[in-house]
């Protein structure tokens, strides 16, 4: 496969990989790096590409694994506070600040979810993959996808309700 063909192929889902990496790693730069790494790995193994049933799904799985490794390295490397979420000690103040942009607030809620729920909501509600595809990408079964999806969405609803009831502006 030629370079150009490869780039055209991957351009179709490159942004999706980037958004997933950003969802997991939060930082823009790290997400860019992750996307590059995954695509390069894919390029190096281009000879095997024909064997993959679905290159896009495979790339998503690779991205997930790459980000997991990164997150693990960060935890053990004592770098936990870099780009992760700071502890919420004074919710009212924080809420006030964040409520300035209510959409950011949704993002914040989402990034507070456990990794798996976060990914599943990302893949389903933002990228609009169906459950079967997500199950394949994340290497879990479809029921687990549906359960995690529902839990994640309910958690978001709960947090949104809280915010609404506090009426912070």
């Amino acid at each position: 496969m030629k370079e150009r063909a490869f780039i055209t192929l991957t351009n179709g889902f490159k942004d999706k990989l980037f958004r997933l990496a950003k969802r997991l790693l939060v930082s823009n730069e790290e997400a860019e790096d992750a996307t590059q790494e995954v695509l390069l790995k894919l390029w190096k193994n281009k000879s095997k590409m024909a064997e993959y049933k679905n290159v896009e799904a495979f790339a998503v799985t690779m991205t997930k694994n790459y980000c997991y490794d990164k997150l693990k390295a960060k935890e053990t490397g004592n770098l936990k506070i870099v780009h992760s979420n700071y502890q919420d000690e004074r919710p009212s103040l924080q809420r006030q600040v964040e409520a300035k942009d209510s959409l950011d607030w949704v993002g914040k809620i989402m990034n507070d979810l456990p990794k798996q729920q976060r990914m599943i909501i990302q893949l389903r509600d933002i990228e609009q993959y169906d459950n079967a595809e997500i199950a394949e990408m994340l290497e879990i079964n479809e029921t687990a996808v549906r359960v995690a999806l529902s839990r994640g969405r309910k958690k978001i609803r709960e947090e949104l309700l809280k915010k609404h009831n506090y009426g912070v502006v």
Partner: protein
Amino acid sequence: MELSNIEKLLEKYFEGETTISEEKELKVYFTGETVPSHLERYKDLFQYFSNESTITATKDLKIKASRTPKYKWIGVAASIALIAGIFLTRTVDSTEPVDTFEDPEIALQETKKILNMVSQYMNEGKQNLVYLQEFENTKKKFIK
């Protein structure tokens, strides 16, 4: 779409039981203008989802991997050339010994003469080493 329908869909949505197309309907509805106040809070959610799906990576993919193999082979080629060069020049230098005498008899005599000379010098040199025997004798006194 009817309000009751939307509410039903929302309930299904939170149970994770909506289909992709139903979710699209919800998205369209909530990103629209008219949303009743009790559903207002979900507006952010769907708005956020549709905003997020437009984020794009800024860096372009650079495939640097394709460059390295080329140089790798140049290195291999260069080292092969170098080794081959060393061996080739060596074989050129070491030419076959050329005969210096026409008559084999004379050659034999000359060779003998030279070998004699060598052994003579050897023996002369060895004579000076006789005193080494002393070391051996002394050593024998201690080590039996």
